[in-house]
């Protein structure tokens, strides 16, 4: 709106002074100025969003996970997050971005953007017409960093560092790039907006980020077997204060993750921002309430775990659902994830040390399915019929079939995550040996893998 007033004054004054040819020129100049202004606005928000999403991994996730382990493993666990800021970045620049986002098959991209060839400051109109292509590339990179870092919750306190590096490298190639391409890449099988055969709504990564990492985490926990002494000796979180700081940073960073996924600074970004915040709040409430009823006390760890579960669950639907459904999605996620983590996990006996599956796998699945229920074109009118009328999105718009599409997306993410993770674990195990020796595990990963300790209070 801001541009309309000066434009009309400007053209009115212009018409009196000069001839019509000059008016056309001036309008063209104005048009380009308007485009450039929008680009500056969108790019400013997107660069901030990039930084916010990186903040989720370091320090957010590093602190959250770091506080939940025993103190002999605090640095090793933080390293599992930090090293992905290094490793995933290099892989992305060399081949990752291309395999995820250049045109290729419906399953994986090609090599057109390998070494970031042709990825410059001109926008890529297929993905985001109002921001530099490099901004889009960086934004997507931040997702490629945090996704494998989430898996660390399952192998914490017992994986060998070399094996973790190899596992993650393979996992990016086999699981992440294909999944990102299928959902978000041009021509991807599940891409609802760019010609996918099975249109699946995943605004910010419920399938791509949370289901793949959560399911891969479960497979890793099963493959690695429990930490030695699991359920026999106490394995209490060593510092819930840093976990608290980490979780709150995740909450803040998630605004970049979800609202940034609008790829611009318009109304859709605001809708996603609102949904994100609302779901986090009710999920924290849901988890704490369930815990209060079940074990007698609402805990801080329960509150922050619930908030993360809600943020996970709203991720796929954040740019599709209205605020009231967001409140509901969050609450359901808080309660369900609590039961998965506190009750089902105990019954089944697997050691998903920091609950990567219980929170990300379960919350992501729940959110992806509920997106099929609550997605509405009142929030997102990106899909239109040939006459320009917005198409119905989810069940609330009268499109019940979308739930089936969402379920297919979920199914593909689960199968790819499970099979892919197993293959990567097997290879890493054969090459390096996956699990730290019993001696190293007892000593702690900080000393045995990195030769240092987190807390040298006498120093």
């Amino acid at each position, binding site marked *: 709106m801001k541009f309309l007033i000066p434009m009309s004054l400007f053209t009115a004054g212009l018409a009196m002074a000069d001839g019509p040819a000059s008016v056309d020129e001036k309008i063209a100049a104005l048009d380009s100025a308007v485009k450039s202004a929008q680009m500056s606005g969108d790019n400013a928000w997107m660069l901030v969003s990039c930084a916010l999403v990186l903040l989720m991994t370091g320090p957010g996730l590093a602190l959250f996970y770091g506080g939940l382990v025993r103190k002999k493993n605090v640095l090793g666990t933080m390293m599992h997050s930090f090293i992905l800021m290094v490793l995933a970045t290099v892989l992305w620049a060399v081949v990752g971005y291309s395999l995820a986002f250049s045109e290729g098959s419906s399953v994986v991209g090609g090599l057109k953007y390998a070494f970031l060839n042709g990825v410059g400051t001109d926008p890529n109109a297929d993905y985001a017409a109002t921001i530099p292509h490099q901004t889009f590339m960086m934004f997507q990179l931040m997702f490629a960093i945090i996704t494998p870092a989430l898996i660390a919750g399952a192998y914490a306190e017992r994986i060998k560092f070399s094996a973790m590096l190899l596992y993650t490298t393979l996992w990016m190639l086999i699981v992440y790039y294909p999944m990102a391409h299928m959902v978000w890449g041009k021509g991807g099988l599940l891409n609802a907006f760019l010609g996918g055969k099975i249109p699946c709504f995943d605004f910010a990564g419920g399938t791509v980020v949370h289901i793949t990492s959560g399911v891969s985490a479960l497979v890793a926990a099963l493959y690695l077997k429990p930490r030695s002494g699991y359920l026999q000796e106490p394995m*209490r979180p060593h510092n819930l204060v840093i976990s608290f700081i980490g979780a709150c940073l995740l909450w803040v960073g998630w605004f970049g993750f979800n609202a940034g996924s609008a790829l611009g600074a318009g109304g859709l970004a605001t809708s996603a921002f609102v949904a994100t915040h609302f779901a986090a709040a009710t999920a924290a409430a849901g988890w704490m309430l369930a815990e209060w009823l*079940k*074990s007698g*006390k609402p805990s801080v*760890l329960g509150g922050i775990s619930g908030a993360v579960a809600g943020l996970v669950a709203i991720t796929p639907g954040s740019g599709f659902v209205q605020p009231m459904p967001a409140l509901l999605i969050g609450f359901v996620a808080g309660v369900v994830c609590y039961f998965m*983590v*506190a009750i089902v*996990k*105990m019954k089944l006996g697997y050691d998903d040390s920091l609950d990567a599956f219980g929170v990300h796998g379960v919350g992501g699945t729940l959110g992806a399915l509920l997106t099929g229920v609550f997605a509405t074109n009142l929030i997102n009118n990106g899909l239109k019929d040939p006459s320009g009328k917005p198409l119905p999105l989810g069940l609330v718009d009268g499109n019940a079939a979308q739930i089936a599409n969402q379920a297919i997306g979920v199914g593909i993410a689960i199968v790819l995550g499970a099979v892919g993770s197993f293959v990567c674990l097997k290879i890493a195990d054969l090459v390096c040996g996956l699990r730290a020796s019993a001696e190293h595990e007892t000593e702690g990963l900080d000393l045995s893998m990195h030769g240092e300790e987190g807390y040298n209070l006498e120093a």
Partner: protein
Amino acid sequence: MKKIEAIVQPFKLEDVKEALKGIGVDGMTITEVRGHGRQKGHKEVYRGQEYQVDLLPKVKLEMIVPSDRVDEIIKTISSAARSGKIGDGKIFVLPVEEAIRIRNDDRGETAL
């Protein structure tokens, strides 16, 4: 000479120190310790997983005193540290063979 070891509740430490100061005992060594006697620990729950915490934080005071002051000191510590509940702690008295002041090689009670 005797060694008095008193294990008390951390929140009683200041009271005990003040009471000992009041009767002229000003040398002591204090360590933060964990342990339990008959007192039961407490339950902690993290994401539904319950932990029984048996070893509770306590403070241990150690002092070497002339034998004739032992009863008075015991009385002072126990009345200052008592809350009347299980977990108040214990006092042990041990014989001490010799004491040496490092600064000037004083020995025996002069070294205390």
